[in-house]
């Protein structure tokens, strides 16, 4: 009887330890996220895509593929659910806005959701003060259909502006850096939904 108890105790202890180490490893991975590296990658490859990765410009759009490359350059680790091992071995979460969101929404530090109309009115408190270089911003139709992904690359002091880089679909005219988010939002329907994917808070 004593032996059975001992074995059960050992198994439960092992399980708890393994679970806590998994959580620990996970947190470590995000705390190592280097915003400068993500931004540097974004600025380097915003207008001329990195040929090491497949370009999805004519296959539905390259926005999320580009964002994935940026956050990967920042140090977010590939996993069995989020990876790029070549053009024929890539996860949906790496290249599709909806899958990227599904994968990261419960893993990142904060995942605020708001409508574009609210974002415009509360710009300074809801976006300027919250988004940091290396964070991700996504858009969906009001019905939830995911549409687009961008990466934040900077902010200024003179006009409460936040800057982003992006890839797009069908034309290289939609690939750019130093985009001004405050003004960009004015060109999008007020009913669109915005998702702030704030990767981490702490150092």
């Amino acid at each position, binding site marked *: 009887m004593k032996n059975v108890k001992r074995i059960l105790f050992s198994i439960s202890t092992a399980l708890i330890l393994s679970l806590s180490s998994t959580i620990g490893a996970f947190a470590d991975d995000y705390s190592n996220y280097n915003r400068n590296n993500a931004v540097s990658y974004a600025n380097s490859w915003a207008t001329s895509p990195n040929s090491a990765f497949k370009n999805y410009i004519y296959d539905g759009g390259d926005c999320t593929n580009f964002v994935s490359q940026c956050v990967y350059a920042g140090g977010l680790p590939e996993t069995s659910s989020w990876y790029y091992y070549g053009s024929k071995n890539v996860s949906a979460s790496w290249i599709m806005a909806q899958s990227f969101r599904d994968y990261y929404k419960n893993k990142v530090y904060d995942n605020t959701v708001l409508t574009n109309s609210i974002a415009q009115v509360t710009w300074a408190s809801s976006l300027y003060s919250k988004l940091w270089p290396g964070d991700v911003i996504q858009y969906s139709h009001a019905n939830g259909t995911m549409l687009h992904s961008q990466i934040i690359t900077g902010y200024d002091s003179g006009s409460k502006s936040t800057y982003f880089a992006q890839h797009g679909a069908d034309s290289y005219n*939609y690939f750019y850096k130093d985009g001004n988010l405050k003004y960009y939002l004015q060109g999008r329907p*007020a009913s669109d939904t915005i998702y702030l994917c704030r990767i981490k808070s702490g150092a």
Partner: protein
Amino acid sequence: MKNKRLLKILVLVAVVTAIGSISVFGAQTNVKDKIKTLTEQFNSKKAKLEKTGVYDTESQDAKNIKKLGGQIADLTEQTKTEDDYAKELETALYWARKGLEDSKNEQKLCNNDKDRKSSIDKIEKKLNSLDEKIKAKKNKTSNNKFINSVSDSVSGNASDNATYKQLMDEFYKPAE
């Protein structure tokens, strides 16, 4: 005697106006100096925070930097000239057009949703209208003032009289 009184009044008015101008200029200079000092602080604190690339965005330091950025932007607003607003409007329209183009392209992902299409059309109309007003203002500046005032009175269009600041305010109004 009357002339002397008139002269005194004129001198007084001139002195008051001069003092007023000097104090306004002085206040503007003070604000500009303050902006310069705060911007130096902002840049220095920002560089320090972001040095390693791995930093705490919820720390008091990080919050203070964004707060300082907001403070500088508010002060900058006080010193903006019409030229500044003109440049800002140009940038604003450029990036709003980028947002508009992306939104148009995304329509195919939204099954060409009619409500969204209607919003996009309204935004485009607003941006076009602002472009037209800017064009009219530029024409007015380059053409003879007399010819413009005649054309204004004929067309009844006084929209090119709006200042760039007013056009910037119009830019932020919801598209209708």
